[in-house]
């Protein structure tokens, strides 16, 4: 999952890193195929080098130490609005078939629960050239339609984003789950593009909350190489963010 996320980062890109797994993915990409990628953090940090120790939040002292830039939130988040940010990573409680995210109102055992909210996720989903969503594959979380669009994906499909006034070159690019990678068709709907090693397509379909389309060119996600695994262990030695 982390290795697949890291591969979404291309060398030389500006990346909105976010927290948790994407932090590991960014550090991994920097150590492997994308040494010239630059990490952006919405609290006002820009880093050419990932932090040297595991981060619990983007404001941890290790993330400020030896940063390239420390300034205010607007000076970093405005890069999104300028269209300069290539890729942004997001987590979510729920994602739907059009890549819309909900992190505001969840459902648990039939009851509505209040979740923390957008943070910078909505801004990134609106304005980054590519948005990559990372979450555990669970039918409660990959749902047909989210009840609340905290962070817009492709709305209800088609040209929805343009109709809302969102930038032309922006929007969801991939959903990376514990079972596979979903990508988006021209119509804005997600389809299964690859399955992780050892996972069967039927399992993915049964764990998805809508009738997920499967690519004609379905592939198996390349598993983490030994080098990637070693790097992940080095970045997260206590497995705080990478459980398996």
């Amino acid at each position, binding site marked *: 999952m982390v290795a697949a996320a890291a591969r979404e980062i291309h060398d030389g890109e500006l990346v909105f890193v976010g927290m948790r797994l994407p932090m590991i993915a960014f550090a991994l990409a920097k150590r492997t195929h994308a040494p010239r990628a630059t990490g952006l953090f919405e609290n006002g940090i820009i880093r050419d080098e990932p932090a040297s120790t595991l981060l619990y*939040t983007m404001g941890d002292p290790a993330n*400020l130490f030896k940063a390239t830039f420390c300034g205010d939130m607007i000076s970093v988040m405005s890069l999104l609005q300028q269209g300069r940010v290539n890729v942004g990573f997001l987590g979510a409680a729920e994602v739907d078939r059009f890549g819309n995210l909900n992190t505001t109102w969840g459902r648990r055992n039939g009851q509505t629960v209040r979740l923390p909210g*957008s943070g910078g996720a909505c801004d990134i989903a609106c304005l980054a050239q590519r948005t990559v969503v990372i979450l555990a594959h669970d039918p409660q979380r990959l749902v047909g339609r989210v009840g609340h669009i905290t962070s817009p994906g492709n709305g209800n499909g088609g040209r929805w984003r343009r109709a809302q006034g969102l930038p032309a070159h922006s929007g969801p690019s991939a959903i990376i789950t514990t079972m596979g990678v979903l990508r988006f068709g021209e119509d804005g709907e997600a389809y299964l593009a690859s399955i992780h090693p050892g996972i069967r397509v039927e399992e993915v379909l049964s764990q998805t909350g809508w009738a997920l389309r499967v690519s004609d060119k379905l592939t198996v996600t390349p598993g983490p190489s030994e080098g990637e695994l070693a790097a992940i262990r080095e970045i997260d030695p206590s497995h705080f963010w990478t459980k398996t």
Partner: protein
Amino acid sequence: MTSAAPSKLVSMQQAIAEHLPSGSSVLMGAELEQMIPFSAGHEIIRQGRRDLTLVGPISDILFDQMIGAGCVSRVMAAWVGNASAGVGYCFRRAVEQAIPRAIETVDYTNFTLAMALHAAALGVPFLPTYAALGSDVVKSNPNLREFASPVNEDRLIAVRALHPDVAIVPVQRADAYGNSHLWGNLGVAIDGARASRKVIVVAEEIVSPEVIASDPNRTIIPGFFVAAVVHEPWGAHPSPVQGYYGRDHAFFTEYHEQSRKQEDFERWLENWVLKIPTRAGYLKQLSETRIADLKVREHAFTAPADFGF
């Protein structure tokens, strides 16, 4: 600053008593996950303030604690929870079950909240942005309104200027007049201070005006914005202060466990806030070993910059 100017140094107790009445809107957590004014929030709880509006992009568990203590009627934020451990249970209880009281939530995104403060800092009624277009955040927040651009064909969101009554801004060092040095990520601290009617600065160290003037690029708040300066070492614990102390990750995890149920939270509140009247007492309870663990292990001073002429 002339030496004749009056010092603004007061205790935390005095600062809150004088400048933060019930019903105020208060900006906290302007520097996001670092430098959260926990000691100020705890004093607000102890002084029994009610009907506050909390403003901040995220305030980690400080907002959760103040909501759980019943001080809050409204939250204007982008994210409320526990940054390293997950949800904020007090926030959930208040929104879902009105425990200990009902609260209104006005949801922002980080960028739109920053823009709201920036608009106020610029002295304009709103600023335009493409962020949040198409989201339900806009539908639920009356301070975010879609409009047609007057200069091209675009649709944009007008973010209404936000003027908190009080901003509480932790800084590494300030002089007695409120001129403040802050380093590290700045979040919305500069705009937040300028947007607010009053500013309370909480400083790890009090220095002379000469120290401030030796490095004016590091000054984020000129003293004339500032109503009160509080000297409160370790005032941001368990959040970190660059160059002073690290983040007490375990404290956030412990709080998460100990706030899961309302009665447990009440015990936590009694133990860490209500029964301890000062920050000195809080630090004593925290224990010397825990404090020693959080101290800076390896200092990293910046290269000197020459202001000579």
